[in-house]
């Protein structure tokens, strides 16, 4: 069967997943169809209701990328301080890293060769 991918321990069949997904979608659509029929698209019903407060302009209420995952970055602040220090943007540093990693790899291979 070309649909079944054997991983050696289990199998993966995208067709089963897609069939289940379609069934779920049909069920969701069924419940949606039973919803409120009186909705009118281009009237005040479609406007944002903010407990009577004035709704800000589109550009003011859009959550920008800098505000997302603030807590994640605060928690990992120390990690980011360290990792950002490496990203200097200076090409000399990039080449220094290359020299260092090459030197370490040569030493490891030579020592491993002696041990062998």
């Amino acid at each position, binding site marked *: 069967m070309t649909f079944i*991918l054997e*991983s050696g321990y289990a199998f993966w069949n*995208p067709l089963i997943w897609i069939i289940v997904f379609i069934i779920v979608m049909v069920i969701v659509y069924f419940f949606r169809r039973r919803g409120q029929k009186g909705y009118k698209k281009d009237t005040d019903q479609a406007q944002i209701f903010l407990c009577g407060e004035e709704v800000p302009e589109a*550009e003011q209420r859009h959550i920008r*990328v800098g505000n997302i995952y603030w807590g994640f970055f605060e928690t990992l602040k120390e990690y*980011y301080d360290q990792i950002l220090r490496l990203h200097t*943007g200076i090409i000399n540093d*990039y080449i220094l890293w*290359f020299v260092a990693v090459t030197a370490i790899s040569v030493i490891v291979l030579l020592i491993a060769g002696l041990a062998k």
Partner: protein
Amino acid sequence: MAALITHSPILIIAIPLAAAFLTIPIGMASRKARNALVIGSLTFVVFLVFALARDISINGIHLYTLGATSPDLTIPTGFMVPVRIILEVDGMSIFMGIIWSIVSLAAATYSLSHISSETGQTRFYTLLLLMVTGGFGMMFTGDLFNFFVFIEIASISGAALISFRTRFADTQEGGFKYIVVSAIASLMILFAIGLLYAQYNLLNIGALAQAIQYTTLDKIALALLLIALAMKTGMVPLHLWFPDSYSVAPASITGMLVITSHACMYAAFRICFTLYGGVINAPVVGWIIIIFGLLTMFVGVTMAVFQKDVMRFMSYHAVSQLGYMWVGVGVGLAVLGNTELLATYGRDAMSGGIFHILNHAMYKPLLFFTGGALFHYTGTRDLTKMGGLAHKMKWTTILYIIGTLSISGIPPLNGFSSKILIYESVYQFHPILTITGIIVSILTLASFTKAFHSAFMGAELPEYKEVKEVPKSMIIGMVILAAGIVFVTLFPSLVVDWAIHPAADALIDQGAYINAVTGAIP
């Protein structure tokens, strides 16, 4: 047709090379004719690559000796070793060739509109076709010095293409960094080739693999080759140049640069498995690759989630995803000497890593193309300035969602198929590899959700009232890649059986590669 297939390895390299030089006179006469030449030649190359792939699946390794009376005459009369340039295309080489041909065609199609307002378009297509030539050469050559020549062609044209939009200052910096890093890597590769040539008087990979002794000089050459190629792929901590260069190139070129990174990764695998396969200290080199692979996955994704520039964000994700491939194939290398472990999980881990190359080659250029589409009309790469673009760019939004679900390994998309192969197999080697992989996948989804919300969701912003969907050729370029994603999603087993397992077996079976060259005496 038989003659076409016989000569296909050299034709696949020569056609884009000839087309590269033809674009100049034809481009001066007619813009439409030039575009037709570019798309026509790349379409014909796709046909040749698939014809060659079919031939290899039936007849095995395809050899092509340049300058010989017969293409399979690898060792001339009176010689004991191969002295001519030989193209040796096996399951792994053609697997890379298929990826390169499709992505090149998609990128060229996308470029028709994407760079239509730029000056010097003919030069752009000349360089693009030269990069295609370099890429195919890297994948098909069976000769180390020839590999150096082709990596130089790909690197120089790549640097020029990164700097192509000269009106932006950062493109010049990106191009400069790319050429410096590429020149250092190429120099080290040339030095390593010199070390091997000085000892064995050989440049052919198959013949060298038979003669190599794993002396101290060989170990130094191995480290130089491996780390230089790792730097070209953007392996952490040698990835620092990667976002600086990839984020400023035209999006179509960034998509192609990702595949040149894959080509360098392929070369690293070829060096470890084919050239050094019989003598290498596989567990040590395997662990070195695995450790750097894990670092690459984690540092790449944590840096990506922090980015506000859409192209830098995607560049860091490219770094992170390359880590999966290193880990998968690294596990295969670590157990290369143990037949039982190789059969139990090593081959599956390698297959997972190689399968991820294919998947990454489709969803990553697609995501870069969507990033380019955003830049095309908004004129900015800054996610903080974007919002509500889904209202106007419906096709781009749908294609971005496909790419996002795929890169995050969400079922049933193709990214899930390769990741599940990697997770289940590398778990047998060490559970921490799978745990890291899953954490990285979660962070990938989280960061793409963040970028999706920032760029596409929310109310329509007044500054983007005039924005419209990108031109058709850009959509077609993206749809070609999305169609590939859908195909692999639906038929993972077909792809694994036809392309992935033969590629993994080609790496494992060092003897077949050597015998194809040294045993083919007429």
